[in-house]
């Protein structure tokens, strides 16, 4: 009959270095027609709380979930690599900026073709990618044999090369001796693009309900400070500690309602808000 739904929507907003997170907690509750029915709650604020922000919503529409607009993931600039010899190929893809990968092809002696491309990279990033190449011709025991390339000497990391978006670069590597396989290490030396730290906006969607019919009222009390609301936002500036909240109906109407609350500091940033405690449910 009496149903309680308590949701901690954002008890911890991990916004790293940003203190500007705005956490909202909420509760949804039914008020019955019992004479004098009053729901009674306790909300505890801690941290550097300056005031409790409280809003009552009438008509049983649960406070809308807080919408977190997250930044889309930033796609990396990537390099793809294919190593080919005759009909044999080996490939590795999506070598992101600041990382490296190895690719090996067991093709014996002879000429190998190393192809690098930037297909599938993040085209919004216009900077050409840079990379280096290092290769080894190996025998079956994985010992270095002999080889050469116009790009760089065997076993030496090449100078830094660059490749624009949607472009391809090809190099020839010739392995000799008792070569069994060719191993190539490609390092994407492109600077890692770190998205600018952005405050994640949290937009409470206020439900389209009547908040001023006067058929439901709430009182928030702490110390010698008591305030009443029929739907307007209350800010009760009483610092840390327990805030009492009572919800009742002057006309003894059965009502479903919800409320949102948050303990805020002097800069209106979230302090420490504990989930509300239900003392009486009528």
């Amino acid at each position, binding site marked *: 009959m009496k149903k309680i739904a308590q949701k901690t929507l954002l008890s911890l907003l991990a916004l790293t270095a940003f203190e500007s997170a705005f956490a909202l907690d909420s509760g949804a509750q039914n008020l019955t027609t019992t004479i*004098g029915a*009053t729901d009674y709650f306790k909300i505890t604020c801690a941290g550097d709380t300056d005031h409790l922000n409280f809003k009552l919503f009438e008509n049983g529409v649960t406070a809308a979930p807080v919408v977190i607009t997250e930044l889309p993931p930033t796609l990396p600039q990537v390099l793809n690599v294919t190593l080919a010899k005759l009909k044999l190929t080996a490939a590795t893809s999506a070598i992101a900026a600041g990382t490296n990968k190895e690719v090996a092809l067991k093709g014996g002696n002879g000429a190998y073709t190393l192809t690098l491309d930037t297909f599938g990279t993040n085209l919004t990033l216009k900077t050409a990618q840079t990379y280096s190449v290092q290769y080894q011709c190996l025998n079956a025991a994985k010992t270095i044999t002999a080889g050469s390339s116009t790009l760089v000497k065997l076993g030496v990391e090449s100078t830094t090369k660059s490749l624009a978006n949607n472009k391809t670069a090809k190099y020839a590597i010739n392995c000799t001796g008792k070569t069994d396989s060719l191993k190539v290490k490609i390092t994407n030396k492109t600077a890692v693009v770190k998205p600018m730290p952005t405050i994640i906006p949290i937009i409470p969607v206020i439900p389209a309900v009547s908040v*001023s019919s006067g058929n439901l009222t709430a009182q928030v009390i702490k110390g010698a*400070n008591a305030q*009443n609301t*029929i739907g*307007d936002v209350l800010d009760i500036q009483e610092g840390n500690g327990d805030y009492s909240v009572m919800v009742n109906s*002057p006309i003894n109407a059965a009502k479903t309602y919800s409320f949102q609350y948050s303990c805020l500091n002097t800069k209106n940033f979230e302090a420490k808000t504990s989930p509300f405690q239900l003392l*009486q449910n009528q």
Partner: protein
Amino acid sequence: MKRFLFLMLMSLPICGFAHDLSGDLGESASATDYMMIYCSADGSITADKLYFQLSNDSLSPAPLVSAQIAKNNFATNVTDLINGDANSSRVAEVAGGEGAYRVTINKNGVGKASYSFVYHCESNEGEHAETTDSTLQNN
């Protein structure tokens, strides 16, 4: 504008000793008067509960006036549903024993309102116990 008139009345024959308080609430819908009522034993008479009854004395159209009485983890609401008539709200008897009862008085909308209420601490047998009060907020 704002007033709190404390009157001690010997008006309730059953209880023998009652208290009456009146006041105004300002224009804002958030206006809340706030007081504490303290109940304690009077000799051999224990303070078992608080008797409370509210009247909305507003003559012109005004929002409904309600009072909430809370003690420990219990709270109740009383409302005078018709402004300015001879009838008061229901009687609330909050059985919280001795100690401080928290009383808040407020409205369900914008507009000034006047009210009064009768209260006293009493035993389960209806005998009047020690009753004192202090005003914490008047707006």
